[in-house]
């Protein structure tokens, strides 16, 4: 198989684009897809300061690498969840990338350790407060990413969600007819109220396989093991189903998610509507001031509960 562009030996075939690329042309393809996402969704400009949420996995480290190479002003934030050796390994991968690659671009790495604040790692904390681990993890990560972005005056927060993540999430929402979640499935969410950072997903045009290939080809050392807490999750099941469909019918995932985005954009002017909706229901948490629909936000409630049940 030869590269569609330069006709040298290809290293990856992309059936959904009816193309194959060598390393150089594939890197160009990936950078172009991210640049298109940033421009078409008006995510950020070269003058903006961007906080990249990094986990040690392929997607977030690839995102940081791509944004640095495209010349954007980025720093990273790693949240140490305290999941035993998994967190130790992922922390080491992030630190290695920050020192070996990001530092030479002048980028810094922020760190938040769940155990320092909550008194326990995510698994123990979830058990003690009787909540699902993935739900506890999601609440903590979203809160901390937003907190650091606001406190450190970043213009936007970027996450490594890819086409597979978004297509699987959309499939889950559609299967359960959770229409209220669909408005917020776009790749660019505005800072709708004071206290919320703008959030973007610059990798939504790239599949997991393409991002793993980018990491391998560019010698990005990432954690290959999946999170031990995620085993058997619905998200993984939906991804497997979509990948079987994609293998049989290339382009299924992008047709599904991009088609949804196109329909949403024609249906309503989402940014205004979303902002208006948020302003109508959100107000500052009485404890921490982050926006919430309740008096005290879910994160502060969780931490208050942790203080009463976690042995110190």
């Amino acid at each position, binding site marked *: *198989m030869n590269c569609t562009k330069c006709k040298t030996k290809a290293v990856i075939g992309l059936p959904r684009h009816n193309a194959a690329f060598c390393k150089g042309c594939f890197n160009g393809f990936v950078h172009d897809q991210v640049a298109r996402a940033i421009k078409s969704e008006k995510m950020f400009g070269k003058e903006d300061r961007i906080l990249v949420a990094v986990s040690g996995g392929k997607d977030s480290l690839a995102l940081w690498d791509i944004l640095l190479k495209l010349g954007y002003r980025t720093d990273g934030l790693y949240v140490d969840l305290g999941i035993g050796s998994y967190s130790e390994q992922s922390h080491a991968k992030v630190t290695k990338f920050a020192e070996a690659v990001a530092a030479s671009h002048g980028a810094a790495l922020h760190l938040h350790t769940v155990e320092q604040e909550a008194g326990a790692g995510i698994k123990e904390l979830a058990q003690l407060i009787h909540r699902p681990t993935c*739900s506890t993890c999601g609440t903590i990560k979203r809160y901390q990413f937003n907190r650091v972005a606001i406190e450190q005056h970043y213009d936007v927060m970027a996450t490594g969600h890819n086409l597979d993540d978004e297509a699987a999430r959309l499939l889950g929402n559609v299967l359960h007819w*959770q229409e209220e979640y669909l408005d917020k499935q776009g790749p660019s969410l505005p800072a709708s109220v004071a206290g919320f950072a703008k959030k973007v997903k610059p990798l939504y045009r790239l599949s*997991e396989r393409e991002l793993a290939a980018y990491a391998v080809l560019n010698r990005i050392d990432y954690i*290959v093991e*999946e999170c031990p807490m*995620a085993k058997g999750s619905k998200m993984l099941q939906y*991804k497997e189903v979509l990948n079987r469909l994609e*293998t049989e019918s290339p382009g299924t995932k992008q047709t599904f998610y991009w088609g949804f985005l196109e329909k949403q954009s024609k249906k309503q002017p989402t940014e205004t509507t979303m902002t208006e909706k948020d302003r109508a229901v959100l107000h500052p948490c009485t404890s921490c001031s982050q926006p919430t629909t309740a008096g005290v936000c879910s994160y502060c409630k969780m931490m208050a509960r942790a203080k009463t049940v976690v042995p110190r």
Partner: protein
Amino acid sequence: MQVQLSHPARTVEVKGPKKVKELLRELNLVVEAHLVIKGDDLVTEDEMLYDGDQIEIRPVISGGSPRFTPHVSRLTSQE
């Protein structure tokens, strides 16, 4: 050839020669969910693999947060 697999980590011996796509089919693995690495190099589905090659089949799926389920609190989130 020796084929290294993940989730769980294990090594299996597979008789060559055969193409990458035939190897994946034999192991009942979906192309879209895996990368095949020969030595240090990524290879395409039509690449021929031979006895003596060191092969890694790396899964690409990650993540598990059930962000669409109703019990996930959105009180402090835009997602």
